């Protein structure tokens, strides 16, 4: 099931700079997109979401951008902090469905 793909397994960013995490999807029937952060041995923590009718949603240091024509979304974290080091998952929800379809995750490391 490759409907949601995160092509970068890892990303390393300097503290204070911008982190950009990318996600691509294939199914144009996805209605909502969500980003989760996950520390080892913990459950995914919800960060931010976006509806397919919007192209941007912002919450504090986190902004999600959606480009429907390219079937691409990205999560921007600015400024990046050491506590942001975690695995980030993109997930999508089909119209009328309840199951989240997850990407493989991107491990973000923030260097001091």
């Amino acid at each position, binding site marked *: *099931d490759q409907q949601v793909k995160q092509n970068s397994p890892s990303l390393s960013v300097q503290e204070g700079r911008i982190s950009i995490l990318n996600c691509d999807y294939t199914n144009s029937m996805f*209605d*909502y997109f*969500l980003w*989760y952060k996950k520390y080892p*041995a*913990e*459950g*995914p*923590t*919800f960060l931010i*979401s976006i509806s397919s009718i919007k192209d941007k949603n912002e919450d504090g240091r986190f902004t999600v951008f959606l480009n429907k024509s390219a079937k691409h979304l990205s999560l921007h974290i600015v400024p990046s902090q050491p506590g942001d080091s975690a695995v980030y*998952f993109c*997930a999508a*929800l089909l119209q009328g*469905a*309840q*199951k*989240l*379809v*997850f*990407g*493989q*995750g991107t491990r973000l490391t923030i260097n001091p």
Partner: protein
Amino acid sequence: EPEVTQTPSHQVTQMGQEVILRCVPISNHLYFYWYRQILGQKVEFLVSFYNNEISEKSEIFDDQFSVERPDGSNFTLKIRSTKLEDSAMYFCASSPGLGTVTFYEQFFGPGTRLTVL
């Protein structure tokens, strides 16, 4: 802040044994879910539950699996006869349901690590 809780954090069992994983969803949420993550793989959906019945399930959720809401707070996943390949992290999640702006946002518990020997 309300959160989803799960017990136990780690369960070790012998192949063929039954296990029950327990979850307490966020109290005013209406939809409940189980997901699992096999080591090194994606998080996969197992089942969703609403109004005391299964609303959606994946092909993974076969007759060996069942879910129940035995009372007003707990939500359980039972695996009747565990197999080696059932070893994974099992996550419970809940969402508010229709009627709220963020009805679709699912909040996850910390997970139960199931090890089948």
